[in-house]
């Protein structure tokens, strides 16, 4: 069924209860409570950091912060869609390793290709890895977490094969327009962050206001019901993983652009960081509910905490503790609201 849910919302259904209690919202409000809380928390954090460490509100501190948000938030867009359909992808860390080593070593160091070629190849490689996940999950009908645990190992093998036991050194600065340096900024804003914001805005609109976007929510809410309603469930699930793969490819170019060396541990643990950003952003891990805006805010919160911990002169490992606490608080607040909603 290609009826837009938002469209259906606009035509008031005829029922006696609607007149008194007001319309029942089908579509979540543009900015949900979770996102308001996140905006508030980030604002408070930034204010506190600005007062305690004078160096925080300077371009040299904010620029690396938003640049480090970019890869996490970008992959988070795809991960949000995947989790909305009720799946998960724990192979993104290993996929980052494959895409970045291919881009850095084969495309830039050995073939010395241009920026455009590097980005295209990285995105295609990422898309292929996502395609493998998607085919196995959509058509093998196996739980996503198991398949992606398996493919994560396979991807890591591919990456280490290409690394061939050494780090990649002397990467040419072809990707500088996507990096952290002066070439990577316009009016002081890192390009990687701009790209992320634009893509997130498109994804946000697509997921909320088009029939195709609502299909993902339908699948996550009830896969069988979605199928019976005419949603092409398998194709949609496949598309979610391919999208994640493509975005991993793009994010990998940001990672490569950050320096002239690439270590073999690139991407390690990033899958958990992305999932953390998504769940902090209010996306339900059981599927059917979530938003890209929340994910971007979640990524921003996580990186703010990491940046704040180092700026306050604390041990950088402590930031993980705060990330853990942030997950508990964010998801806990969501649980409480859900419970209150259920009782009403």
């Amino acid at each position, binding site marked *: 069924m290609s009826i837009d849910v938002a469209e259906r919302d606009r035509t008031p259904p005829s029922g006696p209860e609607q007149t008194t209690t007001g319309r029942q919202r089908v579509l979540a409000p543009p900015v949900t409570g979770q996102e308001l809380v996140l905006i508030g928390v980030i604002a408070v954090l930034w204010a506190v950091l600005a007062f305690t460490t004078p160096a925080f509100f300077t371009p040299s501190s904010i620029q690396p912060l938003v640049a480090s948000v970019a890869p996490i938030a970008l992959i988070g867009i795809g991960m949000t869609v995947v989790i909305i359909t009720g799946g998960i992808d724990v192979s993104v860390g290993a996929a980052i390793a494959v895409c970045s080593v291919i881009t850095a070593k084969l495309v830039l160091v050995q073939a010395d290709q241009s920026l455009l070629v590097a980005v295209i190849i990285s995105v295609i490689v990422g898309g292929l890895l996502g395609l493998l996940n998607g085919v196995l999950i959509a058509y093998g009908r196996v739980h996503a977490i198991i398949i992606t645990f398996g493919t994560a190992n*396979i991807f890591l093998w591919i990456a280490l094969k290409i690394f061939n036991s050494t780090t990649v050194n002397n990467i040419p600065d072809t990707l500088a327009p996507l990096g952290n340096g002066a070439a990577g900024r316009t009016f002081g804003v890192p390009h990687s962050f701009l790209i992320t914001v634009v893509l997130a805005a498109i994804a946000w609109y697509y997921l909320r206001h088009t029939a195709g976007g609502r299909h993902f929510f339908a699948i996550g809410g009830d896969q069988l019901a979605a199928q019976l309603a005419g949603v092409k469930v398998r194709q949609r699930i496949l598309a979610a993983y391919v999208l994640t793969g493509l975005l991993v490819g793009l994010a990998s170019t940001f990672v490569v652009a950050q320096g002239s060396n690439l270590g073999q541990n690139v991407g390690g643990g990033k899958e958990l960081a992305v999932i953390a950003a998504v769940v902090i952003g209010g996306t339900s891990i059981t599927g059917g509910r979530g938003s890209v805006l929340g994910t971007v805010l979640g990524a921003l919160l996580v990186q703010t905490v990491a940046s704040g911990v180092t700026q306050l002169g604390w041990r950088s490992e402590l930031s993980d503790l705060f990330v853990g606490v942030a997950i508990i608080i964010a998801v806990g607040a969501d649980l409480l609201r859900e419970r209150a909603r259920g009782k009403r």
Partner: protein
Amino acid sequence: MTVPTLSEPEATAPDKQSRTPGPERGESLAARVVRALLTQRIVLLAVLIVLVVVYFIVLGANGYLTAAYDFDYMSAALINAVPLAMLGFAELIVILSGRGGIDLSVGAIVSLAGMIFGFAYGQWGWPLWLAIAITVLVGGVLGLVNGILVAYIGFPALIATLATYYAYKSIAVVINNQRPISTRPIQNLYDSTARSVELPLIGSYIPNVPKGIFLFLLPTLIVVWLLLARTTYGRRVYAIGTNDVAARWSAIGVRATRAGAYTISGLISGLVAVVTVGQFASARPDAGVSGNGMALPAITIAVLGGVAITGGIGRVSGIVLATVLIVWMNAGIRLAFEGNAGPQYQLLALGVLLVFAALLNGFALRRYGGAG
């Protein structure tokens, strides 16, 4: 006794498997073998173990390996099975408890509890038994935190244990300023845990076996098996994993049972911390989380061992066989490749095996199990 009608432990455990029709009349031998391979994970694993061992022995006999793949080598490799299988049991209990049960924090608990063990035994000079007791207790408390978050507050297990993974990992690193503890008593532990010993009576006929197998793995194996197959608590875990609501209507304390599963997972992780410290001869703050960490291999073992990720299905024997398969396969791969290529191919083999097992699970369920 909450489920008095079910006397055979195996009968309830694989509730969905019990729907599988038995060998049908007139089915050929070949068809029956295929059915056993596809529906009985233990049969499949046993066949795979035999194949792997025979393959590497043949390779070794033809001189393709860098060292002999003999029984001594296979026996020595079993030391790697100790932490792997024990954490596999931890994941088994948690995944069995259902409602998306999973424990990503086991590696981080191993790190943190290992540091506590390092302090207690290596620096404060506590007696060994007390140090082990406090380590296991700390693991249990950390697991209880997971249990409370999941069972009582209602966090999805993936999120709760992801959060505690971050938190415990961070505390383990900060607690001793990122420094490992490797004082004299800790270094001496290697002898009493990882060293291979000759068994009494039959020792001269079989290869020497690492001590850790007898000191840690077998006791844990027996306790977990008794717990799951022979106690009321075990029946309850299977019950809540199979059907949460039905279990509640059967007057089972669903929350306490589920919280207990995470606590047991923590207790086992605490014990693994002791093993790991002994094996490394050092209490390392990143012991359980470096590289791929310990949680992912443990979950892999559980899935390979036939534990259904949806809960309620899974057995101790599957975990044991899956561990043995992985350990002996990795040991063979290490001999087949030189340098860094070995560990890399271990990743590939693990990944392929996991995807293959998962696809096979799905196929077997559709082919033989009726509606999945």
